[in-house]
């Protein structure tokens, strides 16, 4: 006879998104059980980079989320212990030619209308911000709102700071959803027991589609592989998050060409992180020397001093993406009681707090901080409006 346990909310997934959902639900006074088949931050969160970026986002619903989340992160930085390594270091996007700089300027102007702070930096002032940057760059933009956090610690401390209202059920895989009259979701089944709650949150990241299927609903979350290169520990030689404008130029021009800029950033512990690639190759874990080549070439082009620095490891992860590159956040009308909080692709660390806040608001009946229509989980159904 399986044992039973009851709480107000069950969150499936102990990644940064699940942790933020649990955190804000607990702050709202709810009792929460977080279930994960692995351990805290063992999924994509443990393979991400921790950039909290507004600089790379087009005006639109994702940028709106990012701006709200950025504000929440500054507030969390005061509440969470310093081990989360929050740093409001700012981003620097550089251009190596007039075309690139022009595209940046146009992009920055549109972003500013949406609430982003962006300052143009002329070529001869770039080295004030980044002394080791390659010579000869045309100019760039400084984004003071870009920040950084250590993702695994962020997930762990979000859970910990939520206190006794959050219970962890680790090493337990959800194998089925419990439903009641009218198809309403009322809990989950794991290998050893049943857990009961009137609300179940799908924060299963890249595996969110499989989880949705357990509830009989369609949510096409797919994996997008990314590699990150990690160097030996160094003194601070990279101060901001630095990347090249080609990416923004590519976005702005609508070109279908491959995008090859690498984000270079230092970390408090010393290593420089260089990330990250994007490929659609399913869950393939084989090392790609082509990707390593591109990341290293991009980083050494920006910072020639890194040439002699050694990479000590590389890791990879699978970003959860949905076809329109927006996450699914909010209640699922097809399965009452089920809420989704997954599909954040390459921005889940950044977007976790606002996602948690939205989910908590939906459960307590509070007003969500923005219009949820673009994120509605049923939008991929053929018949959806």
């Amino acid at each position, binding site marked *: 006879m399986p044992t039973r346990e009851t709480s107000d909310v069950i969150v499936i997934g102990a990644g940064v998104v699940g942790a933020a959902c649990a955190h804000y639900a607990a702050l709202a006074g709810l009792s929460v059980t977080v279930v994960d088949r692995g*351990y*805290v*931050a*063992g999924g994509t969160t*443990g393979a991400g980079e921790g*950039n909290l970026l507004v600089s*790379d986002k087009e005006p639109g619903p994702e940028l709106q989320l990012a701006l709200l989340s950025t504000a929440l992160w500054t507030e969390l930085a005061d509440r969470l212990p310093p081990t989360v390594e929050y740093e409001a270091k700012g981003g620097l996007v550089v251009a190596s030619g007039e075309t690139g700089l022009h595209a940046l300027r146009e992009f920055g102007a549109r972003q500013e209308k949406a609430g982003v702070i962006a300052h143009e930096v002329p070529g001869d002032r770039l080295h004030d911000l980044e002394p080791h940057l390659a010579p000869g760059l045309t100019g760039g933009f400084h984004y003071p709102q870009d920040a950084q956090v250590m993702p*695994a*610690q962020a997930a*762990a*401390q979000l*859970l*910990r700071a939520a206190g006794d209202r959050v219970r*962890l059920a*680790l*090493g337990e895989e959800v194998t089925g959803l419990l439903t009641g009259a009218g198809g309403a979701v009322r809990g989950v089944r794991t290998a050893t027991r049943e857990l009961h709650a009137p609300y179940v949150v799908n924060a299963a990241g890249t595996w969110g589609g499989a989880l949705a299927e357990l509830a009989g609903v369609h949510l096409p979350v797919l994996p997008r592989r990314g590699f990150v*290169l990690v*160097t030996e*520990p160094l003194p601070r030689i990279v101060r901001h*998050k630095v*990347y090249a404008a080609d*990416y923004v130029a590519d976005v702005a021009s609508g070109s279908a060409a*491959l*995008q090859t*800029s690498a984000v270079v950033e230092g970390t408090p*512990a010393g290593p420089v992180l*260089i*990330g*990250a*690639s*994007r*490929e*659609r*190759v399913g869950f393939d*874990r084989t*090392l*790609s*020397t*082509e*990707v*390593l*080549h*591109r*990341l*290293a*070439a*991009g980083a*050494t082009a920006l910072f020639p001093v*890194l*040439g*002699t*620095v*050694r*990479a*000590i*490891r*590389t*890791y990879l992860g699978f*970003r959860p993406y949905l076809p329109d590159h927006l996450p699914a956040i909010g209640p699922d009308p097809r399965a009452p009681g089920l809420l989704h909080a997954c599909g954040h692709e*390459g921005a889940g660390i950044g977007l976790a707090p606002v996602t948690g806040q939205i989910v908590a608001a939906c459960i307590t009946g509070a007003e969500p901080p923005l219009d949820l229509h673009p994120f509605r989980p049923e939008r991929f159904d053929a018949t959806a409006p």
Partner: protein
Amino acid sequence: MTASASEPEDVARSCSASGPKDSTRTAPDPVPDTGRRADAPYDLVVVGAGSAGLAGAVAASELGLSVALLDSSAQSGGQFYRHPAPALGARRPEALHHDWSAFADLRRRLHASGVDHLTGHHVWSVVKETDGTWTAHALTGADGCADAPARIRARALLLATGAYERQLPFPGWTLPGVVGAGGAQAMLKSGLVLPGRSIVVAGSGPLLLAVASSLASAGARVPAVVEAAGYLRYGRRPRALATNPRKAAEALVHAAALVRHRVPVRLRSAVTEVHGTDRVEAVTVSRLDREWRPVRGTGRRIACDALAVGHGLVPQIELAVAVGCTTRALPDGTLGLALDDLQESSVPGLWAAGETGGVGGAELARTEGELAGRVIAARLLGRPARVGATAGLRRRRDRMRAFADVMSAAHAPGPGWTGWLSDDTDVCRCEEVPAGRIREAIAACGARDARTVKLLTRAGMGWCQGRMCGTAVACLASAGSAPEPPGERRPFAVPVPLSTLAALDGSPDPASAPDSPTDPVPS
């Protein structure tokens, strides 16, 4: 590319102009290069020139394959047949080895063969290309820093990268004067230097007796050999012992040497603390219970100026793990490669021999190397596999493997060893992560395995990539239940300069195929 002094840089590859799919030559070609396309792959690349790699390379070459033998060190021989660089002028390096003649024989065969022995080649990655051939990416130069990266291609790959020493931390283990037991042996063999004058040898595993007897024979005082296991478990498998008389004889030779030098051996005991301010001055040796928990009140102080400590060896398999080879858990809690009866891994075209498949000593390594070399030659030359030709080798291998498993089981760390760690003992030396922080991550932050402990504490993220602390972290994370063997997942077998990675272009890599676009962009 750096070649050893005895082999000129552009030695001929025996299958001169033949393409990747047909190799018809049967004898090594002694003449210098005769128009072979410079980028033609070898038949076989062997990584590691220890007992296993040497045997595999010469066996394959003698049967007609073109072979490149890569090793990071400047000499052949691996860990066992370490010997001083010629400049040291050692007259009789063989005095420190039993079985030197087997090595001398392999070296003679190597010199007579057409094998390209590429010394100073640190292989950082091996890649299976879309056409089925292998590329070994290597850094060159004595310390791997020379900026002449090499790319060696071949139709088949034999991994014979040996093992590295396993360490379990204890209070004081970072003091100068504490050295690895195998490392002390290696220092003695290659440089003829001792780590101290009075050296306690401790840890677990058959290597300890060998190390103590060499140190004592070289003039050091060895106040004690401290072995955490009992030897009782050997006795539970009498068959494996009886069929391996040479192994038993080897142990007797070491034991006799210890008696001669009056070295006491303490079983079921461990060094649970090291004392000293600037370097080792003494150690505390405690009795252990069956689970390796130190027994209260049994601690005894022994004066010494060095401690040589090790808990057996861990197969060095990251190159194979990175390409997806299946592993198997060994009885001592380490991971080895899962190999079939003919030494092939789960990834077709990748063979392994020696310690990579489980630690078993130089003779087993040699046998497996020879077997792999013959099997690979038969496969590539399209000869029907003649079962009979390798039957003897396979029987010998199986017999020695059975013995290795008995040894491995006898020296598996007991779950109670973590009891000798205090909260402020650094477990990860690279990142300076003490045991207390790891315990906290497990108790309060939801880490439950080596990976999540690493993510939450940085233990294992540093320079050595968890080679030093992997076992300890896995044991702490498992909280007393059987720990998962550390995954040996290190995509770079050695650190690689970014300029080397940046220069890697045009590699025929599946990920660059048009249907799987690669587009690094900010995340």
